[in-house]
């Protein structure tokens, strides 16, 4: 039977259906791999092999995802399981319901399995802000896996999961996918219900998949997408098979290269790999067009106003009343709130709540929040204009390779700048995907580089078709070298 952990979901399902092996075998293979590798990587905050095995034994492999285990970021509610958001304030919390994506995955036969580490409340780019543990990059354990969905990316990269779910508010799926050498998809805003994802910045958050192939991400999205009465921002669209446009070539596709995404200051080795990948796209038949997104330089500023403002409102619910940490022996209600939140939240979360509260406060709202919302309009218009002449954009996912653990923890602004190529997509509500496009030798280890494709709102089928064509030609070997 061999080591099943190398398989993609499509390969796994083919094996299930032919009877070569069973979902229980697939879970046992993960168990062995996790026990061997996770003590060094630290991707999982919790896992329950017994219940996954029990579900696997009952699985119907004829279902769309029958018997496929899927790892879950510890910010998405799965009935009866912990959902800590890697925060002390939610220590011991047990989800009283399934998030809509989880209900949809379960209905398709998938097995949600394990709780994956993240930056506390998804605030960060390195997973170092977890209150529980540091997750290491499987390619080099002295380096960060990216974030905030670092556990989800590292688990797929280290073959401790066939696929996982993460959430992307400013790049939290695409950036760790890039740094861990796997595929990560951020759907368009409104494509996937956010119900049951603990809210960080509600106008930016989207749930999306990580996998070791674009096709697997597409299969998961086909199940996850759809209107949900519990999320009024989810869009009512007909079901789609997101693998339907995987033709393997790029003839007739116009790919835009945004000038502002090739800036001084990015790692020249990243740039070289991305430029090589763009040439591969041309070889596959794509027509390359240089485009401009003139307001790119403002995206990070806009993001850190809007995201923190929304976070300060969303995280007001953590007040130690109905759930979560409550300080002992409060002198009065104000003391109860202030100490519960002081004891429960970590530094980055406090920093962002303070910033968000400030930009919304009386006298500063117009200068910061309203102004940021107007610049958001300009950023969105940049993409609308670019998409009038091209089918998708191609650019780097991250300006850097995975950096060393501890290197940026004391410099929040520098950490924020790492998200420069991913943030604008969330502000504009468009879809994006990161696919591995090369390995760079760095002090004796190989580190992956990600190529990002950005698509029009709700144009995931085409985006995934383009990413798959590139993957077949340019990424297969990298995906095969996963450590």
């Amino acid at each position, binding site marked *: 039977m061999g080591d099943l952990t190398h398989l993609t979901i499509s390969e796994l399902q083919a094996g299930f259906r032919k009877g070569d092996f069973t979902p229980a075998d697939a879970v046992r293979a993960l168990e062995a791999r996790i026990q061997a590798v996770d003590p060094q990587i630290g991707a999982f905050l919790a896992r329950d092999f017994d219940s996954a095995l029990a579900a696997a034994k009952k699985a119907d492999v004829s279902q769309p995802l029958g018997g496929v285990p899927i790892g879950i970021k510890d910010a998405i509610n799965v009935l009866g399981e912990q959902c800590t958001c890697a925060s002390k304030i939610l220590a011991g919390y047990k989800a*009283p319901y399934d998030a809509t994506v989880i209900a949809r995955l379960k209905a398709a036969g998938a097995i949600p399995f394990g709780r994956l580490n993240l930056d506390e409340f998804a605030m960060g780019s390195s997973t170092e802000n977890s209150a529980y543990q540091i997750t290491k990059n499987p390619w080099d354990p002295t380096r960060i896996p990216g974030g905030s969905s670092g556990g989800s990316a590292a688990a797929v990269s280290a073959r401790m999961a066939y696929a996982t779910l993460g959430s992307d508010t400013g790049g939290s799926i695409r950036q760790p996918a890039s740094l861990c050498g796997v595929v990560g998809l951020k759907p368009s805003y409104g494509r996937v219900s956010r119900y049951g994802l603990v809210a960080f910045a509600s106008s930016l958050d989207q749930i999306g998949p990580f996998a070791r192939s674009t096709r697997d991400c597409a299969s998961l999205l086909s199940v996850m997408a759809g209107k949900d009465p519990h999320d009024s921002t989810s869009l009512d669209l007909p079901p789609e098979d997101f693998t339907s446009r995987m033709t393997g070539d790029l003839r007739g596709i116009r790919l835009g290269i945004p000038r502002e995404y090739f800036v001084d200051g990015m790692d020249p080795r990243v740039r070289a790999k991305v430029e090589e990948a763009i040439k591969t796209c041309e070889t596959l038949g794509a027509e390359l067009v240089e485009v401009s997104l003139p307001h790119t330089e403002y995206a990070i500023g806009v993001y850190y106003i809007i995201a923190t403002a929304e976070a*300060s409102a969303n995280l007001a619910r953590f007040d130690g009343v109905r759930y979560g940490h409550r300080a002992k022996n409060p002198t009065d*209600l104000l003391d109860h709130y202030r100490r519960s939140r002081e004891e429960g939240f970590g530094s980055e979360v406090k920093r962002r709540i303070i910033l968000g509260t*400030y930009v919304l406060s009386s006298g500063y709202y117009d200068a910061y929040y309203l102004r940021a919302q*107007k610049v958001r309009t300009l950023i969105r218009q940049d993409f609308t204009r670019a998409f009038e002449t091209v089918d998708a954009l191609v650019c780097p996912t991250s300006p850097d390779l995975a950096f060393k653990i501890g290197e940026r923890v004391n410099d*929040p602004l520098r950490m924020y700048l790492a998200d420069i190529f991913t943030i604008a997509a969330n502000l504009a*509500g468009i879809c994006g995907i990161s696919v591995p496009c090369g390995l760079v030798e760095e002090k004796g280890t190989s580190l992956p580089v990600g190529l990002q494709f950005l698509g029009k709102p709700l144009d995931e089928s085409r985006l995934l078709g383009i990413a798959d064509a590139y993957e077949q030609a340019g990424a297969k070997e990298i995906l095969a070298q996963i450590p």
Partner: protein
Amino acid sequence: MSSPNLDVRDVARLARIELTDKETDTFQSQLGSVLEYVEQLGKLDLTGVEPTAHANPIFNVFREDAVEPGLRREAVLANAPQSANNLVLVTKVLE
């Protein structure tokens, strides 16, 4: 900068978070740099630009005003820091 207007201690009070003196000082300087960075938004002429709150143009999503099943009481109370008689115990609100 600068950001002479940001008083972390005061904002923390609004946000209902107790901060240590050390945290207050660290945040004052770190958030000062972040605010200095976002000052760049001031360079743009935004006359006539409408704000975007949300990437999709959806407004006022209505549903029938019908009762739907909620969460199970035991599951909800199991997460409460303190409970008694099927109710959440809270810190005294009124003197």
